């Protein structure tokens, strides 16, 4: 009798989660000077502080699952497995970008990993996730649809319509509300009469749970449980992931709506700092390990920047391509 195949050790798994979060953090940090140099234009929304959400959730998803994301999606895309080069080239608007440069920071798409954007209309992605889940169900496939959205989206009608439809039709949708407390500059309590977001799902008979979105283990655990239930046929489920963005809403934000002390308090319980402390305290990681992971992440980011830099622009002659699907000849 053979033993079951060994899973990753605690050390390996802890380092994997930390590596993934560091990759996102380094990528986002590198975007800031690139934006200043005008290499990246348009609106850009960084994910600093929220890394545990993307990384934790992605541990629970399989290649056959569909993902719908928001305009703050660099982290989701990296954690899903798109290459940093394709993402950075997209931010540059180069033809080697994940959307051929047509989308930019807010519209990262990737058919290979079933990454359906990159939706910059708040709440607009939720109906798509419902439909992707419906397609799974009607074709008797095992995939689920995982849908990220911010807490600002719950004020939109599309949130309520989508929750109802997913529950009514018993569809395999994992609703992932990233509650970072501010819809752009509007604090949650200034826009919602009920600030316990997860409770809203109950009105649609969708099981829901608040999760500490700064704790990657908590996110991973909650996501694995949720995905198992959904794949087991229980219908949709909502996780409210309580998190915080460390940087401004976009690159045009003086942050007049929150004070520095609040930001600092959250930074002290940031997902990377806390995981690092835990791994070190448990004797699972050394400072050298951390330095190595951070260095590797930075090297990967620099390679992505170099790739974007040397990539070509799409010729203007192709401007009107992709308005309609190009038929296979």
């Amino acid at each position, binding site marked *: 009798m053979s033993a079951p195949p060994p899973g990753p050790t605690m050390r390996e798994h802890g380092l994997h989660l930390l590596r993934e979060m560091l990759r996102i953090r380094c990528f986002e940090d590198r975007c800031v000077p690139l934006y200043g140099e005008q290499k990246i234009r348009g609106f850009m929304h960084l994910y600093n502080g929220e890394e545990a959400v993307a990384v934790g959730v992605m541990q629970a998803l399989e290649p056959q699952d569909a993902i719908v994301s928001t305009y703050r999606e660099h982290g989701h895309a990296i954690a899903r497995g798109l290459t940093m080069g394709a993402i950075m080239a997209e931010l540059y608007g180069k033809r080697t970008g994940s959307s051929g440069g047509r989308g930019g920071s807010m519209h990262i798409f990737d058919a290979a990993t079933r990454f*359906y954007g*990159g939706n910059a209309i708040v709440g607009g992605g939720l109906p798509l996730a419902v*439909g*992707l*889940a*419906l397609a799974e169900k*009607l074709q008797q496939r095992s995939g689920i649809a995982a849908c990220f959205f911010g807490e600002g989206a719950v004020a939109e009608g599309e949130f309520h319509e989508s929750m109802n439809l997913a529950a009514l039709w018993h569809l395999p949708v994992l609703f992932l509300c990233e509650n970072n407390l501010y819809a752009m500059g509007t604090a949650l309590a200034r826009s919602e009469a009920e600030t316990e977001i997860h409770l809203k799902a109950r009105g649609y008979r969708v099981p829901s749970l608040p999760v500490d979105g700064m704790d990657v283990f908590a996110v991973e655990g909650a996501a694995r449980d949720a995905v198992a239930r959904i794949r087991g046929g229980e219908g949709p489920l909502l996780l409210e992931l309580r998190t915080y963005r460390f940087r401004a809403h976009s690159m045009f934000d003086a942050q007049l709506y929150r004070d520095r002390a609040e930001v600092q308090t959250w930074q002290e319980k940031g997902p990377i700092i806390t995981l690092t402390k835990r791994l070190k305290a448990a004797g699972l990681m050394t400072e050298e390990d951390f330095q190595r992971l951070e260095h590797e992440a930075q090297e990967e980011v620099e390679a992505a920047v170099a790739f974007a830099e040397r990539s070509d622009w799409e010729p203007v002659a192709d401007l009107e391509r992709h308005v*309609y699907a190009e038929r296979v000849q």
Partner: protein
Amino acid sequence: MSARAGHVTYREATRQAIRAAMRADPRVFLMGEDVGAYGGCFAVTKGLLQEFGPERIRDTPLSESAFVGAGIGAALGGMRPIVEIMTVNFSLLALDQILNNAATLCHMSGGQFGVPLVIRMATGAGRQLAAQHSHSLEGWYAHIPGLRILTPATIDDARGMLSSALASPDPVLIFESIALYNTEGELTPGLERVEIERAAVRRPGRDITLITYGGSLHKCLAAAGELAGAGIEAEVLDLRTLRPLDDETVMSSVRRTHRALIVDEGWRSGGLAAEVCTRIVEQAFYDLDAPVARVCTAEVPLPYPRHLEDAALPSPERIVAAVRGLIA
């Protein structure tokens, strides 16, 4: 209402098209408000729930944005959904999904994702349904790159356009004129599919081209009949597809008749008729013997009483009068 022997109604032709598509392709399903148990707001889908069951004929809540968006998602996920919206006025509740997602995803994703979705909806006036059920907004939708806009006006097009739309890798909106559902005619035997990129000459003529689509086609044909009695031979051109517009067929006709009148149930300002007029002026200006003219709906939200609704809409009388103004 059943049609005469050998004839079918526009409604029945539309239903036949849905039934044939459902039978031909297991990826096709229909969803919308009251399409199942009720049989469709305009009775187009009557009987389909019994034949195909609730998985494929899906009644939806009154959530236009969610079920249109779900249609887009299902199309992305490999299905071929037909989404029915009761009327074009209600489609505005789903305009975000139609414009920001259906029309945009292919381009925004660099061509990775097509949206092979068909949305059917009723359009137009003539039933005294007042100002929130009667408008003709297909011209707005024709403004949007990424969409294909079809306006079946004949029995054959009601039967054949759906199959072509479902075969398209792009989002297709089909506007069914409320005024046409009870019209009837012969269906070409064996017809399954029609091409959806060309306009069609429905009545040949040499003196003027009446350019129209949808519910106004029959008004133009009636006007042309009356004009013929007065010795004026009007050619009647059915655009059929509002996006992409078939410039070639339009210009070919106008270059022969040297006069053009556009009849459009939409409002005049900034409407489809303005677009067609501009194209004629751009491409066939020196072939014209008279200014291009328009007959459109009066610029009011459509009123309820019959006499005011009639006065607001294009009519054979207004068309005849406009033609006489161009052919002195």
